[in-house]
């Protein structure tokens, strides 16, 4: 059965809809609880993982660390999404499960005015102040996705369906999503399952290597893994061997190719010494 990936401009509403859809269809719900598992498995703090998902990077953000945390979440999330019948929310999966045809991608939006009113009431703010906060949240949300995945997550073209809670009741949204996922076009097939397996394998390899190679890109195809890393010319062979050794030991990896992207900054620094 298909996957449902939900993204929302209001976390609480997105979470509620996702849980209700999972309950209606008898699917597994995959949400922020996963962070507890990721934190325990990798000896990082759950709060730090949540911050990486929620906060756009600032001037003082350690970007390599943030990328690593997001990579840990992505690998764990994709591993669960290899199974069928999952509703996923709050783990940024809409950013990395884009081309998979058996994943129904849904965006839940709300009218800014309604969000401001709800925020003003919940936090005892003036409507004007709440309005500004909502505008800031929208801007931050956009910046988060652009800086992390080079995509604007508020762009409707990333989704199969955009539902406005300004027009529809929350329960109606649940009903529409539950009905839509029954369309034949969202059924898993050999091609889409393989794509998901390739993504999960690439994420698992990346997770293992990110600690040593922060600027890493990994592609996988049917057990063949292609790794792109930066290196100075003099370290190239040593690094290639290390990548082959680490990646080659992972389950599902049959062959490893390592491509070097010249570390031009490092090269320049070295030659000026």
């Amino acid at each position, binding site marked *: 059965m298909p996957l449902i990936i939900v993204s929302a401009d209001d976390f609480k509403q997105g979470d509620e809809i996702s849980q209700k859809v999972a309950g209606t269809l008898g699917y597994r719900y995959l949400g922020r609880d996963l962070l507890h598992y990721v934190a325990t498995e990798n000896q990082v703090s759950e709060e730090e993982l949540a911050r990486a998902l929620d906060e756009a990077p600032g001037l003082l953000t350690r970007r390599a660390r943030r990328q690593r945390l997001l990579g840990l979440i992505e690998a764990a999330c994709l591993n669960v999404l290899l199974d069928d019948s999952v509703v996923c929310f709050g783990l940024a999966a809409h950013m990395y499960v884009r*081309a*998979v*045809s058996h994943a129904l991608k849904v965006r839940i939006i709300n009218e800014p005015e309604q969000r401001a009113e709800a925020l003003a009431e919940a936090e005892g703010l003036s409507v004007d102040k709440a309005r500004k906060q909502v505008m800031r949240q929208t801007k931050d949300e956009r910046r988060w996705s652009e800086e992390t995945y080079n995509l604007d997550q508020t762009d409707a073209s990333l989704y199969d369906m955009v539902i406005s809670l300004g027009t529809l009741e929350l329960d109606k949204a649940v009903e529409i999503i539950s009905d839509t996922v029954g*369309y*034949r*076009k*969202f*059924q898993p*097939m*050999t*091609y*889409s399952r*393989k794509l998901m397996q390739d993504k999960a394998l690439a994420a698992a390899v990346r997770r293992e290597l990110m600690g040593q190679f922060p600027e890493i890109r990994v592609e996988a195809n049917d057990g063949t893994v292609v790794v792109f890393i930066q290196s100075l010319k003099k370290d190239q062979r040593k690094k290639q061997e290390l990548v082959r050794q680490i990646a080659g030991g992972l389950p599902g990896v049959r062959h490893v190719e390592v491509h070097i992207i010249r570390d031009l900054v490092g090269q320049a620094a070295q030659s000026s010494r």
Partner: protein
Amino acid sequence: MSGNLQVLLLDDEPIVGRRLKPALAKIGCEVDVFEDPELALAKMAQKEYDVVVTDIRMDQIDGMQVLEFVRERWPRSKVIMITGYAMMSLAREAMEKGAFDFIAKPFKPDDLRRVIAKAAHALGSDIDFDVVEVEKANG
């Protein structure tokens, strides 16, 4: 369904039929191979196949038209789409039009055999896919 699984394989690249026909015969399929979609359609107008495996991108008649023809003429037949130009929109279109499965090229003969075995199962007849596995294990 009685006897061997009747399979029609349509791909305008001759190598595909040459390679896959013996692979499918090993699991007990009777395979008719076509490179010309028009000839394949003419044959299918007369004969009901259990499984039709068709490439998507071909000259004159494409795989989607073949799929539509089979779904209308022989609704019981299972159609498996294969393509070297796989993408999400095409995969979804094929499934929506009633394809049984969609496979991206290149693939291994085992990948297709596995899907054919699933199709046979859906038609109420089981193929002993393990026979091939055992043969491979024994070298």
